[in-house]
């Protein structure tokens, strides 16, 4: 199986040749890959080097925590990717963004109003959890829609707070 794996602006062609070999950009390497104790912690011996990483699924990408750094990694089946680019253009552009609570907590303030235009990075909601106030920000510019919470309200993890269209 061949994959196109992307980190930032760099694409890697990774082929899983068999259980003991992969190639990265056509360079074949010996690999011994194991999960530790059924956890998303993986040990990989690759051409003798020993690495351990914590790998979990993020919103759209895999998150790899390796040597104290975090890498958001996109993994695409090569064939799939080819089909997609044949379809042309970016998919899912301009889709609605739903601000979800990243944790259970208490809404301290809603910093925006419905139909307000917001910039990327602008604070939308302030949420208190674990004695800390946390600012939830807009991941992109847009217009605020459907505010579903009020200050003083308790929210559950992943509850939708408002949308940006």
């Amino acid at each position, binding site marked *: *199986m061949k*994959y196109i*794996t992307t*980190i*930032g602006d*760099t694409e*890697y062609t*990774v082929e*899983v040749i068999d259980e003991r070999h*992969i190639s*990265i*950009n056509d360079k074949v390497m010996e*690999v011994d*890959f194991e999960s*530790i*104790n059924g*956890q*998303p*912690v*993986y040990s*990989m011996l*690759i051409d003798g080097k020993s*690495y351990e*990483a*914590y*790998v979990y699924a993020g919103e759209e990408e*895999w998150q*790899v*925590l*390796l*040597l*104290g*750094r*975090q*890498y958001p*990694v996109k*993994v695409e*089946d090569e064939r799939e990717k080819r089909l997609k680019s044949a379809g042309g253009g970016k998919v899912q552009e301009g889709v609605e963004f739903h601000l979800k609570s*990243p*944790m*259970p*907590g208490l809404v301290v303030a809603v910093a925006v109003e419905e139909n307000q235009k917001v910039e990327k990075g602008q604070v939308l909601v302030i949420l208190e*959890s*674990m*004695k*800390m106030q*946390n*600012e939830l*920000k807009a991941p992109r510019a847009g217009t605020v829609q459907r505010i579903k919470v009020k200050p003083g309200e308790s929210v559950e*993890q992943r509850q939708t707070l408002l949308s940006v269209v």
Partner: protein
Amino acid sequence: MFKKVLVANRGEIAVRILRACRELGIESVAVFSEADRNALHVRYADEAYLLGPAPSRESYLRADKIIDIARKCSADAIHPGYGFLAEREAFAAACIDAGITFIGPKPSAIAAMGDKMTARNTVIAAGVPVVPGTEGTGSLRDEELLALAPKIGFPLLIKASAGGGGKGMREVTSLEEMPALLGSARREAESAFGDGNVYLEKLVEGARHIEIQILADQHGNVISLGERDCSIQRRHQKLIEEAPSPAMDEDLRRKMGEVAVKAAQSVDYVNAGTIEFLVDKDKNFYFLEMNTRLQVEHPVTEVVTGIDIVAEQMRIARGRQLTYKQEDIQLRGHAIECRINAEDPYNGFLPSTGRITHSLLPTGPGIRVDTGVYPGFEITPFYDPMIAKLIVWGETRGQAILRMRRALEEYRIVGVRTNIPFHQSMMDSHRFMGGQYDTRFIEERFSMPEPEEGSMTHRPEIAAAFATLVAHYEAQHSAEFVMRNERDTSNWKWVGRWERMHR
């Protein structure tokens, strides 16, 4: 010694105090909220009693219930830890009224140091330097402030008397610009707090947060155990502490120790306490406040002095003389503490909750971990996000940093995000290594690194391999997984209490 001590706290500090009880042969009592039935402090204590629902105000802040439990189970003392009820004068007084020893200072000392103005005036009277300024002199008019400003010296800060959070605050570098800044500060203060009064305070540049640990017994003996440097803070939360401070010398240590002892004596202080100072780049130091309790970061002092501060607290509360004299106190080597918080450094340090599914503590030479969590324990949003303190000792500061790096690399916590990567970046920071930092270091000079070319720890192709292999095997087996999960779920439904027990 006490026969039975109730620990009015939770988490790592409750466990820390329970350990001291165990080592002193004192029976121990834990109290817990509904969220903490399986917490480590409940498991380790000799007795444990439910306080109430998870929120602190219904559990760990219920002074009445706690004293009631202590009375019913015949505890002869209460240790408050830090936070919660530790610095509430009324709680200390209520313990005494109930005939139970409060392991801490007298209520009067808590009160004196708890009020900022009183504390400032008390220590000034005792000859302790404070940050120069006009606070405590009442409401002054612009002309008066302009006349006083040159005596304080520039740069200085204009601060709102009524408020905080930076509202009405202005930095002033010269007398010329001051009138305009006074005006705008007053307007902002007026609109924010309905009170336009302001005061002046010297701006301490390149300030380090240095604190002196003291111990005081009931017989008038007070000693200092050297300093801790707690300048590495984010949003006024300490994150890394070390002892000794790379900015201190023996002379300054002695001087600040003497001043700290004076400050403690000025309120007739008994038990363990900490005097916090700001130290500027010219080694002038200014009293900030006194914490009338055990500090989170007490282990770094324990590690370099060899003194068990919690055990000493109990002896003091029992009326014993201090075990040590000032001349017995010798610092050996260097200690660093990293606070491990359940928060995501790659996502604005947002708190992270969830069940810890796997964890591997760093161990081996020179490592100490104080923690209240374990694999299987659930991190809830009700309490503060600190889940562990990682403390290392080294013969030198350099060795301690290298050891901390090693320990951070070994530490695995799966199930919640932690700020371990933040600490790893700090230990790799050249300025931290050089001891060149002040309290604004994180805000002004530090950000989580983007993976950089050429760095030893930058391995994007390896990260790519990890993600691809995980994705590959998951895709290959997703069909089976779906089916298995479906069945499992239906099975789980059959099982009632037994499963709850086995969570």
